[in-house]
Protein backbone atom coordinates (compact mmCIF):
# COMPACT_ATOMS: atom_id res chain seq x y z
CA UNK A 1 0.00 0.00 0.00
CA UNK A 2 3.04 2.26 0.47
CA UNK A 3 2.94 4.79 -2.34
CA UNK A 4 3.43 3.62 -5.84
CA UNK A 5 5.71 6.27 -7.44
CA UNK A 6 5.67 8.37 -4.26
CA UNK A 7 8.64 10.07 -2.63
CA UNK A 8 8.70 10.64 1.13
CA UNK A 9 10.46 13.71 2.51
CA UNK A 10 11.15 13.51 6.27
CA UNK A 11 12.24 16.91 7.53
CA UNK A 12 13.00 18.45 10.89
CA UNK A 13 11.63 21.61 12.47
CA UNK A 14 8.71 21.79 10.00
CA UNK A 15 7.24 24.82 11.82
CA UNK A 16 10.22 26.90 10.79
CA UNK A 17 10.24 25.57 7.23
CA UNK A 18 6.65 26.47 6.29
CA UNK A 19 7.54 28.40 3.14
CA UNK A 20 9.80 25.59 1.93
CA UNK A 21 7.05 23.01 2.46
CA UNK A 22 4.54 25.11 0.51
CA UNK A 23 6.96 25.39 -2.39
CA UNK A 24 7.57 21.64 -2.36
CA UNK A 25 3.89 20.78 -2.16
CA UNK A 26 2.87 22.76 -5.18
CA UNK A 27 5.98 21.91 -7.17
CA UNK A 28 5.97 18.17 -6.53
CA UNK A 29 2.48 16.66 -5.99
CA UNK A 30 3.90 13.15 -5.43
CA UNK A 31 6.16 14.11 -2.54
CA UNK A 32 4.74 13.35 0.91
CA UNK A 33 6.23 15.72 3.49
CA UNK A 34 6.49 14.26 7.01
CA UNK A 35 7.57 16.29 10.06
CA UNK A 36 9.78 14.25 12.37
CA UNK A 37 10.99 16.99 14.71
CA UNK A 38 14.66 16.15 14.28
CA UNK A 39 16.47 14.05 11.69
CA UNK A 40 18.22 12.25 14.57
CA UNK A 41 14.83 10.86 15.52
CA UNK A 42 14.26 9.28 12.11
CA UNK A 43 14.03 5.51 12.42
CA UNK A 44 15.60 3.96 9.29
CA UNK A 45 13.16 1.04 9.60
CA UNK A 46 10.57 3.29 7.98
CA UNK A 47 12.91 3.90 5.06
CA UNK A 48 13.59 0.14 4.80
CA UNK A 49 9.86 -0.58 4.79
CA UNK A 50 8.93 2.14 2.32
CA UNK A 51 11.66 1.29 -0.18
CA UNK A 52 11.01 -2.43 0.14
CA UNK A 53 7.31 -1.83 -0.46
CA UNK A 54 8.12 -0.03 -3.67
CA UNK A 55 8.19 3.67 -2.84
CA UNK A 56 10.27 5.72 -5.28
CA UNK A 57 12.54 7.29 -2.74
CA UNK A 58 13.05 8.50 0.81
CA UNK A 59 14.69 11.86 1.44
CA UNK A 60 15.73 13.13 4.86
CA UNK A 61 16.29 16.85 5.40
CA UNK A 62 18.23 17.67 8.57
CA UNK A 63 20.04 20.73 9.88
CA UNK A 64 23.76 21.20 9.42
CA UNK A 65 25.54 20.11 12.63
CA UNK A 66 26.42 23.74 13.46
CA UNK A 67 22.86 24.93 12.96
CA UNK A 68 21.21 22.05 14.83
CA UNK A 69 19.29 23.29 17.91
CA UNK A 70 19.69 19.81 19.53
CA UNK A 71 23.44 20.06 19.02
CA UNK A 72 23.97 16.53 17.66
CA UNK A 73 20.59 15.66 16.10
CA UNK A 74 21.71 15.07 12.54
CA UNK A 75 25.07 13.63 13.59
CA UNK A 76 23.43 10.81 15.55
CA UNK A 77 21.65 9.58 12.48
CA UNK A 78 24.67 9.86 10.20
CA UNK A 79 26.11 6.40 10.79
CA UNK A 80 22.69 4.82 11.15
CA UNK A 81 21.54 6.04 7.75
CA UNK A 82 24.83 5.15 6.11
CA UNK A 83 24.53 1.55 7.37
CA UNK A 84 20.84 1.43 6.45
CA UNK A 85 21.85 2.26 2.87
CA UNK A 86 24.42 -0.53 2.96
CA UNK A 87 21.76 -2.96 4.19
CA UNK A 88 19.45 -1.90 1.38
CA UNK A 89 22.09 -2.76 -1.20
CA UNK A 90 22.97 -5.89 0.82
CA UNK A 91 19.42 -7.06 0.10
CA UNK A 92 19.53 -6.15 -3.57
CA UNK A 93 17.48 -2.95 -3.17
CA UNK A 94 18.69 0.35 -4.58
CA UNK A 95 20.56 2.41 -1.97
CA UNK A 96 20.41 5.63 -4.00
CA UNK A 97 16.69 5.71 -3.17
CA UNK A 98 17.61 6.79 0.36
CA UNK A 99 19.34 10.19 0.51
CA UNK A 100 20.14 12.57 3.35
CA UNK A 101 20.76 16.28 3.03
CA UNK A 102 21.75 18.83 5.67
CA UNK A 103 20.78 22.49 5.20
CA UNK A 104 20.52 25.60 7.32
CA UNK A 105 17.05 26.28 8.64
CA UNK A 106 16.32 29.27 6.41
CA UNK A 107 17.72 27.95 3.10
CA UNK A 108 15.05 27.41 0.43
CA UNK A 109 16.67 27.47 -3.04
CA UNK A 110 19.55 25.05 -2.38
CA UNK A 111 17.08 22.60 -0.84
CA UNK A 112 14.79 22.79 -3.87
CA UNK A 113 17.75 22.34 -6.20
CA UNK A 114 18.85 19.23 -4.34
CA UNK A 115 15.30 17.86 -4.36
CA UNK A 116 15.17 18.33 -8.17
CA UNK A 117 18.42 16.39 -8.51
CA UNK A 118 17.04 13.64 -6.27
CA UNK A 119 13.75 13.44 -8.18
CA UNK A 120 15.54 13.02 -11.53
CA UNK A 121 17.80 10.34 -10.08
CA UNK A 122 14.83 8.54 -8.57
CA UNK A 123 12.74 8.58 -11.75
CA UNK A 124 15.76 7.33 -13.69
CA UNK A 125 16.05 4.42 -11.28
CA UNK A 126 12.34 3.73 -11.57
CA UNK A 127 12.39 3.50 -15.38
CA UNK A 128 15.45 1.24 -15.28
CA UNK A 129 13.84 -1.07 -12.71
CA UNK A 130 10.56 -1.26 -14.62
CA UNK A 131 7.32 -2.01 -12.79
CA UNK A 132 7.43 -1.56 -9.04
CA UNK A 133 6.41 -4.49 -6.87
CA UNK A 134 4.20 -3.65 -3.92
Amino acid at each position, binding site marked *: MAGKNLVYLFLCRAKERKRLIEKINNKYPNIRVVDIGCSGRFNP*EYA*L*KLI*NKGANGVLILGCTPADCIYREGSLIS*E*RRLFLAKKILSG*FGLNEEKLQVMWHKINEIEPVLKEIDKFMNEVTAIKDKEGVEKV
Partner: protein
Amino acid sequence: MINKIEENVKILLKDIFKNGDTIISYRNSGTPEIKTPLFIRNKNDIDFLTIDNFNVNNLSVYLSKFEQGEIGLAKNNGRIIITAKPCDAKSIIQMISDEQIDKERIVLVVYECDGVIDLKKLSRLTGELRQVDANEEYVNFTKLNGETGKINLNSVLLDKCLEGNCGLPYFYNYYFVGNEKSFKERIIKRSKPHKLIIQTLKDKKELKQIVENEISKCIRCNACRNICPACFCSDRCVFDKPKLPVELLEKDVSLTENVLFHLIRFYHVFPNCTGCGECERVCPQGIKLNIFYKYINEIISTEFGFTPGSTDSARQPLLSYRLGEDLV
Protein backbone atom coordinates in the same frame (compact mmCIF):
# COMPACT_ATOMS: atom_id res chain seq x y z
CA MET B 1 40.47 -34.62 23.56
CA ILE B 2 37.13 -32.87 24.07
CA ASN B 3 35.60 -35.74 26.06
CA LYS B 4 38.57 -35.65 28.43
CA ILE B 5 37.58 -32.05 29.07
CA GLU B 6 34.11 -33.28 30.07
CA GLU B 7 35.36 -34.99 33.23
CA ASN B 8 37.35 -31.94 34.30
CA VAL B 9 34.35 -29.64 33.69
CA LYS B 10 32.18 -31.88 35.87
CA ILE B 11 34.71 -31.87 38.67
CA LEU B 12 35.00 -28.09 38.54
CA LEU B 13 31.25 -27.54 38.44
CA LYS B 14 30.68 -29.88 41.36
CA ASP B 15 32.86 -27.83 43.64
CA ILE B 16 31.90 -24.33 42.57
CA PHE B 17 28.14 -25.05 42.54
CA LYS B 18 26.27 -23.38 45.40
CA ASN B 19 22.57 -23.60 46.19
CA GLY B 20 20.45 -21.18 44.14
CA ASP B 21 22.88 -21.25 41.20
CA THR B 22 21.80 -22.40 37.74
CA ILE B 23 24.19 -24.23 35.44
CA ILE B 24 23.43 -24.05 31.73
CA SER B 25 25.09 -26.76 29.68
CA TYR B 26 24.24 -29.58 27.24
CA ARG B 27 22.78 -33.07 27.59
CA ASN B 28 21.76 -35.91 25.29
CA SER B 29 18.30 -35.66 23.71
CA GLY B 30 16.35 -38.67 22.40
CA THR B 31 18.26 -38.70 19.08
CA PRO B 32 21.94 -39.72 19.05
CA GLU B 33 23.35 -36.77 17.11
CA ILE B 34 21.24 -33.97 18.68
CA LYS B 35 22.15 -32.29 21.99
CA THR B 36 19.71 -30.18 23.97
CA PRO B 37 20.35 -27.46 26.59
CA LEU B 38 20.42 -28.67 30.20
CA PHE B 39 19.47 -26.46 33.15
CA ILE B 40 20.96 -27.79 36.37
CA ARG B 41 19.57 -26.57 39.68
CA ASN B 42 20.76 -29.33 42.00
CA LYS B 43 24.14 -30.90 42.24
CA ASN B 44 23.45 -34.48 41.23
CA ASP B 45 22.17 -33.42 37.79
CA ILE B 46 25.71 -32.41 36.89
CA ASP B 47 26.45 -35.97 35.74
CA PHE B 48 23.95 -35.66 32.85
CA LEU B 49 26.13 -32.92 31.34
CA THR B 50 27.94 -33.74 28.08
CA ILE B 51 30.79 -31.84 26.37
CA ASP B 52 31.52 -33.09 22.84
CA ASN B 53 31.60 -32.06 19.19
CA PHE B 54 27.80 -32.16 18.95
CA ASN B 55 27.31 -29.17 21.34
CA VAL B 56 26.12 -26.91 18.53
CA ASN B 57 23.67 -24.66 20.41
CA ASN B 58 24.79 -21.19 21.45
CA LEU B 59 23.61 -21.24 25.08
CA SER B 60 24.08 -17.49 25.47
CA VAL B 61 20.54 -17.05 24.09
CA TYR B 62 19.21 -18.01 27.53
CA LEU B 63 21.36 -15.32 29.17
CA SER B 64 20.40 -12.46 26.94
CA LYS B 65 16.75 -12.99 27.66
CA PHE B 66 17.36 -14.06 31.23
CA GLU B 67 15.49 -11.32 32.97
CA GLN B 68 12.42 -11.18 30.78
CA GLY B 69 11.41 -14.73 31.69
CA GLU B 70 9.86 -15.53 28.32
CA ILE B 71 12.76 -17.39 26.71
CA GLY B 72 15.25 -16.86 29.51
CA LEU B 73 14.68 -18.55 32.85
CA ALA B 74 12.59 -16.97 35.59
CA LYS B 75 14.46 -14.58 37.87
CA ASN B 76 16.55 -16.14 40.61
CA ASN B 77 19.14 -14.50 42.76
CA GLY B 78 21.84 -17.15 42.39
CA ARG B 79 24.69 -17.03 39.88
CA ILE B 80 24.47 -18.41 36.35
CA ILE B 81 27.27 -20.82 35.47
CA ILE B 82 27.43 -21.36 31.72
CA THR B 83 29.65 -23.70 29.73
CA ALA B 84 30.60 -22.07 26.45
CA LYS B 85 32.69 -22.65 23.35
CA PRO B 86 34.94 -19.71 22.35
CA CYS B 87 32.37 -18.59 19.73
CA ASP B 88 29.56 -18.63 22.30
CA ALA B 89 31.81 -16.72 24.70
CA LYS B 90 32.08 -13.99 22.03
CA SER B 91 28.28 -13.61 22.08
CA ILE B 92 28.26 -13.43 25.88
CA ILE B 93 31.01 -10.80 25.86
CA GLN B 94 29.11 -8.72 23.31
CA MET B 95 26.01 -8.95 25.50
CA ILE B 96 27.99 -7.71 28.49
CA SER B 97 29.17 -4.73 26.45
CA ASP B 98 25.54 -4.14 25.43
CA GLU B 99 24.64 -4.13 29.13
CA GLN B 100 22.19 -7.00 28.61
CA ILE B 101 23.69 -9.13 31.38
CA ASP B 102 25.87 -8.06 34.28
CA LYS B 103 29.27 -9.64 34.56
CA GLU B 104 29.16 -10.39 38.29
CA ARG B 105 26.26 -12.84 38.05
CA ILE B 106 27.87 -14.87 35.24
CA VAL B 107 30.48 -17.61 35.74
CA LEU B 108 31.87 -18.21 32.26
CA VAL B 109 33.38 -21.68 31.82
CA VAL B 110 34.99 -21.76 28.35
CA TYR B 111 36.37 -24.96 26.90
CA GLU B 112 38.56 -25.41 23.82
CA CYS B 113 36.69 -27.12 21.00
CA ASP B 114 37.99 -28.64 17.76
CA GLY B 115 34.88 -27.52 15.93
CA VAL B 116 31.20 -28.61 16.12
CA ILE B 117 29.41 -30.85 13.68
CA ASP B 118 26.96 -29.54 11.08
CA LEU B 119 24.10 -32.07 11.24
CA LYS B 120 23.07 -31.29 7.66
CA LYS B 121 26.50 -32.25 6.35
CA LEU B 122 26.57 -35.27 8.68
CA SER B 123 23.23 -36.67 7.47
CA ARG B 124 24.23 -36.08 3.84
CA LEU B 125 27.33 -38.26 4.35
CA THR B 126 26.09 -40.88 6.82
CA GLY B 127 22.28 -40.97 6.49
CA GLU B 128 20.20 -41.81 9.57
CA LEU B 129 22.11 -42.94 12.65
CA ARG B 130 21.47 -45.35 15.49
CA GLN B 131 24.58 -44.27 17.41
CA VAL B 132 27.38 -41.79 16.85
CA ASP B 133 30.42 -40.39 18.66
CA ALA B 134 33.32 -38.19 17.64
CA ASN B 135 36.95 -37.63 18.61
CA GLU B 136 39.66 -35.29 17.37
CA GLU B 137 39.88 -36.83 13.95
CA TYR B 138 37.03 -39.14 13.16
CA VAL B 139 33.30 -39.48 13.62
CA ASN B 140 32.36 -43.14 14.30
CA PHE B 141 28.76 -44.00 13.59
CA THR B 142 26.36 -46.96 13.29
CA LYS B 143 23.55 -46.62 10.78
CA LEU B 144 19.95 -47.61 11.52
CA ASN B 145 20.51 -50.97 9.82
CA GLY B 146 23.55 -51.68 11.96
CA GLU B 147 26.31 -50.87 9.44
CA THR B 148 29.16 -49.00 11.11
CA GLY B 149 31.49 -46.44 9.50
CA LYS B 150 33.97 -43.69 10.12
CA ILE B 151 34.37 -40.30 8.43
CA ASN B 152 36.80 -37.45 8.83
CA LEU B 153 35.72 -34.85 11.43
CA ASN B 154 36.77 -31.93 9.23
CA SER B 155 34.40 -33.03 6.45
CA VAL B 156 31.33 -32.41 8.63
CA LEU B 157 32.31 -29.31 10.63
CA LEU B 158 30.24 -26.13 10.53
CA ASP B 159 31.49 -23.47 8.09
CA LYS B 160 32.25 -21.11 10.98
CA CYS B 161 34.58 -23.76 12.48
CA LEU B 162 36.31 -24.25 9.12
CA GLU B 163 36.87 -20.50 8.86
CA GLY B 164 38.47 -20.64 12.31
CA ASN B 165 37.90 -17.01 13.25
CA CYS B 166 36.65 -17.94 16.74
CA GLY B 167 39.49 -16.17 18.53
CA LEU B 168 40.52 -16.44 22.19
CA PRO B 169 37.75 -15.12 24.47
CA TYR B 170 38.39 -11.63 25.85
CA PHE B 171 37.33 -12.65 29.37
CA TYR B 172 36.47 -15.93 31.10
CA ASN B 173 36.33 -17.27 34.67
CA TYR B 174 37.62 -20.76 33.82
CA TYR B 175 39.29 -21.92 30.62
CA PHE B 176 39.81 -25.59 29.70
CA VAL B 177 42.65 -25.83 27.21
CA GLY B 178 42.73 -29.58 26.56
CA ASN B 179 46.15 -30.95 25.65
CA GLU B 180 48.99 -28.65 24.74
CA LYS B 181 49.59 -29.81 21.13
CA SER B 182 46.05 -29.50 19.77
CA PHE B 183 45.68 -26.10 21.47
CA LYS B 184 48.75 -24.78 19.63
CA GLU B 185 47.48 -26.14 16.29
CA ARG B 186 44.19 -24.39 16.78
CA ILE B 187 45.87 -21.08 17.57
CA ILE B 188 47.78 -21.34 14.27
CA LYS B 189 44.61 -22.27 12.38
CA ARG B 190 42.83 -19.27 13.91
CA SER B 191 45.60 -16.86 13.07
CA LYS B 192 44.80 -16.94 9.36
CA PRO B 193 40.97 -17.07 9.17
CA HIS B 194 39.98 -17.34 5.54
CA LYS B 195 36.85 -15.81 4.10
CA LEU B 196 34.44 -18.18 2.43
CA ILE B 197 31.91 -16.42 0.22
CA ILE B 198 32.17 -12.74 0.95
CA GLN B 199 33.87 -11.66 -2.30
CA THR B 200 31.11 -12.84 -4.63
CA LEU B 201 28.52 -10.41 -3.33
CA LYS B 202 29.47 -7.33 -5.25
CA ASP B 203 27.17 -7.19 -8.29
CA LYS B 204 23.63 -6.02 -7.54
CA LYS B 205 21.73 -8.28 -9.93
CA GLU B 206 23.23 -11.42 -8.35
CA LEU B 207 22.32 -10.13 -4.88
CA LYS B 208 18.70 -9.53 -5.83
CA GLN B 209 18.58 -13.08 -7.23
CA ILE B 210 20.00 -14.55 -4.00
CA VAL B 211 17.45 -12.59 -1.95
CA GLU B 212 14.60 -13.67 -4.22
CA ASN B 213 15.15 -17.43 -4.12
CA GLU B 214 16.58 -17.59 -0.59
CA ILE B 215 14.08 -15.45 1.28
CA SER B 216 11.09 -16.69 -0.70
CA LYS B 217 11.56 -20.00 1.15
CA CYS B 218 11.00 -18.25 4.52
CA ILE B 219 7.97 -19.53 6.48
CA ARG B 220 8.28 -16.80 9.20
CA CYS B 221 8.54 -19.30 12.06
CA ASN B 222 10.72 -16.84 14.08
CA ALA B 223 13.35 -19.53 14.84
CA CYS B 224 16.17 -17.25 13.56
CA ARG B 225 14.93 -14.34 15.67
CA ASN B 226 14.37 -16.29 18.90
CA ILE B 227 17.65 -18.24 18.74
CA CYS B 228 19.72 -15.10 18.11
CA PRO B 229 21.65 -13.89 21.19
CA ALA B 230 21.95 -10.42 19.69
CA CYS B 231 18.18 -10.19 19.15
CA PHE B 232 17.56 -9.73 22.85
CA CYS B 233 14.21 -7.98 22.92
CA SER B 234 12.41 -10.86 21.29
CA ASP B 235 10.00 -11.01 24.25
CA ARG B 236 8.66 -7.55 23.34
CA CYS B 237 9.61 -7.53 19.67
CA VAL B 238 8.20 -4.79 17.47
CA PHE B 239 6.81 -7.53 15.19
CA ASP B 240 4.75 -9.03 18.02
CA LYS B 241 3.21 -5.87 19.41
CA PRO B 242 -0.51 -6.69 19.09
CA LYS B 243 -1.79 -3.14 19.29
CA LEU B 244 0.17 -0.99 16.84
CA PRO B 245 -2.28 1.25 14.94
CA VAL B 246 -0.28 0.64 11.72
CA GLU B 247 1.59 -2.64 11.81
CA LEU B 248 5.26 -2.36 10.82
CA LEU B 249 5.05 -5.87 9.38
CA GLU B 250 1.96 -7.75 8.26
CA LYS B 251 1.34 -11.42 9.03
CA ASP B 252 1.25 -12.05 5.27
CA VAL B 253 3.95 -14.50 4.11
CA SER B 254 4.60 -12.86 0.70
CA LEU B 255 8.13 -12.17 -0.56
CA THR B 256 7.83 -8.42 0.27
CA GLU B 257 6.89 -9.06 3.91
CA ASN B 258 9.53 -11.78 4.31
CA VAL B 259 12.23 -9.48 2.91
CA LEU B 260 10.99 -6.73 5.23
CA PHE B 261 11.16 -9.09 8.22
CA HIS B 262 14.79 -9.96 7.49
CA LEU B 263 15.68 -6.37 6.53
CA ILE B 264 14.46 -4.97 9.84
CA ARG B 265 15.75 -7.87 11.98
CA PHE B 266 19.08 -7.56 10.19
CA TYR B 267 19.14 -3.83 10.75
CA HIS B 268 18.46 -4.25 14.50
CA VAL B 269 21.00 -7.00 15.03
CA PHE B 270 24.07 -6.36 12.89
CA PRO B 271 25.95 -4.02 15.28
CA ASN B 272 26.14 -6.80 17.88
CA CYS B 273 26.16 -9.91 15.68
CA THR B 274 29.24 -11.99 16.43
CA GLY B 275 28.65 -14.33 13.48
CA CYS B 276 27.78 -17.37 15.64
CA GLY B 277 25.83 -18.77 12.65
CA GLU B 278 22.89 -20.01 14.76
CA CYS B 279 20.30 -18.33 12.52
CA GLU B 280 21.43 -20.26 9.48
CA ARG B 281 21.75 -23.53 11.43
CA VAL B 282 18.23 -23.46 12.87
CA CYS B 283 16.37 -22.34 9.76
CA PRO B 284 13.95 -25.18 8.94
CA GLN B 285 14.02 -24.04 5.30
CA GLY B 286 17.83 -23.94 5.10
CA ILE B 287 18.06 -20.25 4.11
CA LYS B 288 21.71 -19.17 3.96
CA LEU B 289 21.33 -16.15 6.27
CA ASN B 290 25.02 -15.90 7.00
CA ILE B 291 25.71 -14.32 3.61
CA PHE B 292 23.95 -11.13 4.69
CA TYR B 293 25.56 -10.98 8.14
CA LYS B 294 29.09 -11.55 6.86
CA TYR B 295 28.55 -8.88 4.18
CA ILE B 296 27.54 -6.19 6.68
CA ASN B 297 30.01 -7.24 9.38
CA GLU B 298 32.79 -6.69 6.90
CA ILE B 299 31.52 -3.15 6.20
CA ILE B 300 31.42 -2.25 9.91
CA SER B 301 34.92 -3.55 10.56
CA THR B 302 36.40 -1.75 7.52
CA GLU B 303 34.37 1.45 8.01
CA PHE B 304 34.39 1.78 11.82
CA GLY B 305 37.05 -0.75 12.87
CA PHE B 306 34.57 -2.46 15.20
CA THR B 307 34.13 -6.26 15.49
CA PRO B 308 31.34 -7.30 17.88
CA GLY B 309 32.33 -9.51 20.81
CA SER B 310 35.97 -8.42 20.80
CA THR B 311 35.85 -6.57 24.11
CA ASP B 312 33.24 -6.31 26.84
CA SER B 313 33.05 -2.51 26.88
CA ALA B 314 33.46 -1.31 23.28
CA ARG B 315 30.89 1.34 22.40
CA GLN B 316 29.17 0.08 19.28
CA PRO B 317 29.26 2.35 16.24
CA LEU B 318 25.58 3.19 16.01
CA LEU B 319 25.54 4.84 19.41
CA SER B 320 28.34 7.24 18.60
CA TYR B 321 29.46 9.58 15.83
CA ARG B 322 32.68 11.32 14.75
CA LEU B 323 32.76 14.76 13.22
CA GLY B 324 33.95 15.02 9.65
CA GLU B 325 33.18 11.43 8.65
CA ASP B 326 30.61 12.81 6.10
CA LEU B 327 29.30 9.34 5.33
CA VAL B 328 25.94 10.45 3.93
